[in-house]
């Protein structure tokens, strides 16, 4: 496994992060924006794990950070979906352009 350098794994996570950012910029639907955020969180997890494995092999801190990030992502997705369902009940739409009451 040492024939793949660390830089290539970091390239992969960078590309995944920016794919998620592209989705977040272009989508106007709340559920698809949430999916883009999940992709970005996953790329961060890949970074933590790769640094832990390649640079600090005698420690486990990167693994712990990934586990905590996965947990917080689960809580965040649940809260976000509750908010989206509530918004759909009041506005009959989950487009971010339709929810502008707090904007003006």
């Amino acid at each position: 496994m040492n024939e793949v350098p660390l830089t290539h794994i970091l390239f992969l996570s960078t590309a995944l992060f920016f794919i998620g950012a592209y989705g977040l910029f272009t989508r106007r639907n709340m559920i698809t924006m949430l999916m883009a955020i999940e992709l970005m969180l996953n790329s961060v997890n890949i970074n933590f794990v790769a640094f832990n494995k390649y640079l600090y092999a005698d420690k486990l801190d990167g693994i712990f950070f990934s586990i905590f990030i996965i947990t917080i992502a689960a809580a965040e997705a649940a809260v976000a979906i509750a908010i989206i369902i509530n918004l759909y009940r009041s506005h009959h739409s989950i487009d971010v352009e339709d929810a502008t009451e707090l904007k003006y």
Partner: protein
Amino acid sequence: MSAAAIFFYLIAAFILGTGILAVTTRKIFRASIWLLFSLIGIAALYFWLKLEFLAAVQIIVYVGGIVVLIIFSIFLTIKSGDEMQKPLLVRSIFSALSVIFGAAFIMKLLHKYPFKLNTGKPFELKVSDIGTQMLDTKNFGYLLPFELISMLLLAAMIGCIVIAIKHKETANNLPNQSI
């Protein structure tokens, strides 16, 4: 190039391809299925890194939990067969440009950076070590974050129920007030 390296590049191409499809396809249900495949690819990457515990957590929480939650909310909120409207051309061009320049910038920095690779003992992950260090109060244990995360999860679950609960008296007149 050895078999392990070929596997890595195959997994990377799979993750990136399904990720791109997940953010660009215009049917929302297909987007969620592509996201599912991308997350499975990330679990495969953890298997490739020989982190079986993390791969199992990834499959259980993301594939089994979050994607199913997203699919349920798609069914509850929109007609899943409809195509979403196209993003504005200006917006997609500028976001693609900013994303490409940002990725190129960071990749250039990473390409030059001299990482001090660990050449000591090889990395091995034992689940018992994770458990011991997670519930330890000394030796850089993670007991306090663990308890905080459990409180956060409890608060998030109660908060979800409170937010998404249907109020009988307000449910009837809320749609009239909106927009």
